[in-house]
């Protein structure tokens, strides 16, 4: 702890301590990712290479996009329990209509983003619990996915396959994509004035309303953004797996919530971090399968690893927050 620039802060002043704790707290997501990477490097040094990262982070892009999607609803103090089945639905549309009839495919995907916007409006206008509404919607998306693609199959459009198998020089594509996603969302949500309003709708809705902003609009925008990134996540997933299955995204609901929380997000108060969320998603993607494989732990325990990481990081956060007081 003292390693963090001990000279620059006044010795043992309460404010200095608090600032240090806050900095440590915001570094926590990056620290946990570094820890997982170090463990992998120690267990299998050859994995830390261009090809190693390409393989290990194969599924990190869709997970990161789903996590960003979840982050937008969480920024507005809501929760989306349907994002997993929505990603599956998008996957089925991508592997069928988007390839065979691109116009219909695009229309359906845009329409589904519109459905998300409508859900946001409904939840705001009727003051509904988002957990229940999205749990209900998860059945709808799953049902639609089964109707579109009753059996696993379909094929990703060629242009999507080409994008997802892009091999840039030196930097593995998943890392490049993660950086790009984090940078774009960070700029949009943290550095623009409407981004502040969006986060404010989760932080202090009453103050925003009194200042004349439409809470209905912020809720619609947040849900539409969730839909947009859900669509991107589903498309990215199909670009990697090349074919679809109605259940392909089911695990993403819980992964995305875990990713947001790992990345320093909070359930209430509009406290979220796009960069943290992407880092959280990468940590989960790395810890769940490559790390366990290198540690010779059977895949049965993959899900448990996610839970354990979540608990460890939250425990670390509690320890740091105590110092913040």
């Amino acid at each position, binding site marked *: 702890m003292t390693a963090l620039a001990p000279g620059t802060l006044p010795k043992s002043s309460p404010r200095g301590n608090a600032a240090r704790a806050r900095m440590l707290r915001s570094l926590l997501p990056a620290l946990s990712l570094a820890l997982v990477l170090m463990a992998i490097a120690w267990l299998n040094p050859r994995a830390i290479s261009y090809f190693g990262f390409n393989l290990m982070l194969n599924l990190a892009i869709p997970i990161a996009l789903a996590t960003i999607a979840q982050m937008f609803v969480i920024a507005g103090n809501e929760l989306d329990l349907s994002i997993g089945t929505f990603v599956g639905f998008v996957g089925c549309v991508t592997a069928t209509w988007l390839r065979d009839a691109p116009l219909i495919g695009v229309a359906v995907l845009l329409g589904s983003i519109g459905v998300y916007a409508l859900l946001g409006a409904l939840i705001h206008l009727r*003051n*509904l619990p988002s*957990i229940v509404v999205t749990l*209900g919607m998860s*059945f*709808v998306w799953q049902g639609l996915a089964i109707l579109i693609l009753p059996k696993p199959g379909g094929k990703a459009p060629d242009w999507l396959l080409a994008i997802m198998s892009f091999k840039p020089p030196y930097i593995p594509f998943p890392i490049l994509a993660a950086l790009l996603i984090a940078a774009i969302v960070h700029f949009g949500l943290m550095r623009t004035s409407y981004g502040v309003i969006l986060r404010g709708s989760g932080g202090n809705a009453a103050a925003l309303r009194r200042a004349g902003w439409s809470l209905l609009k912020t809720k619609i925008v947040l849900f539409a953004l969730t839909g947009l990134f859900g669509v991107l996540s589903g498309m990215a997933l199909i670009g990697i797996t090349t074919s679809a299955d109605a259940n392909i995204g089911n695990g993403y609901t*819980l992964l995305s919530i875990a990713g947001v929380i790992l990345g320093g997000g909070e359930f209430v108060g509009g406290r979220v971090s796009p960069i943290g969320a992407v880092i959280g998603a990468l940590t989960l993607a790395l810890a769940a399968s490559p790390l366990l494989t290198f540690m010779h732990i059977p895949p049965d325990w993959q899900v448990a690893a996610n839970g354990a990481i979540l608990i460890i990081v939250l425990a670390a956060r*509690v320890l740091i927050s105590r110092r913040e007081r």
Partner: protein
Amino acid sequence: MASVRMLLEKPWLWSFVGAVLVWVATVAFTGGYGAGGMVTAALSLAVFTVIVGIGQMFVITLGPGNVDLSLPANIGLASAVAMKAMGGSDSMIVVGLLAALACGAAIGAINYLLIWALRIPPIIATLSASFIIQSVDISYGRGLQIKPPPGFADFTNWQVMGIPVLAMLTVVFTVAAALALQRMIYGRSVLAIGQNIRAAWLAGVNVGRIRFLTYTLCGALGGIDGALLAGYFRGANVDIGNEYLLASIAVVVIGGTSVAGGKANVPGVWGAGLFLVLLLTMLNTFGVSAGVRLVLTGLIIVGVITAAGGEKAVR
């Protein structure tokens, strides 16, 4: 007239009205065939939703953010534990039930331990716990092919004059739960915490203990449910509890319990449980495909929630 209006204002009434409407629609479709059998089947299936629904109701009543997402994993693990403890022999039924109860209660206690020690929202705590429980179950229950003891399987399917005995016992249990909620210090404390946790604390309610008891109770009910499900469906299964995440939350909300906490409704859980089961029966009778059934179930749940509306924000 006044009593009619009072009855209409009961929030649980609508779930029963819905259940009856769905039943009438199905019976009209079949031309009266199987009307009684449908009630029997609905009662025996609704039992499982009602048991976890009551547990989830107590948790949700604790206030915003309180929800137990670990129920499906809990049910799955408890079903395996119960079947292993019973080992297929009638003499071990009670031991198996107690094992499932203890397993569920332990999971509930761990859930609260995480919430308390890490000071994290219950959603994340029960979510992390459910990840770990799920893995334990996959690892422990792999290739577990133990059938329930014949006596236990018969008991879970036992009917007297077309009414499942399990349903009768569950009615007794729900009456007890309603009494506990409205007439006992424990239940009143749960409601008080849900209405205003700080006021409850200032009034001398031992908030930590009540929350601990509530999560443990919910876990224990999940455990018992797992054992009963394994008996009814003749075998444990990792995925046996999957549908009970949505179902447990849905019956609580449709039944008129406030998601914002502090207002619970026990009869509504029964009404909503019957409504959901009858809805599935109706869609199956109409012969719709699995995809359409899922879509309609989801839309109806969203529709019911929208019609019921949320509370006006208190903040």
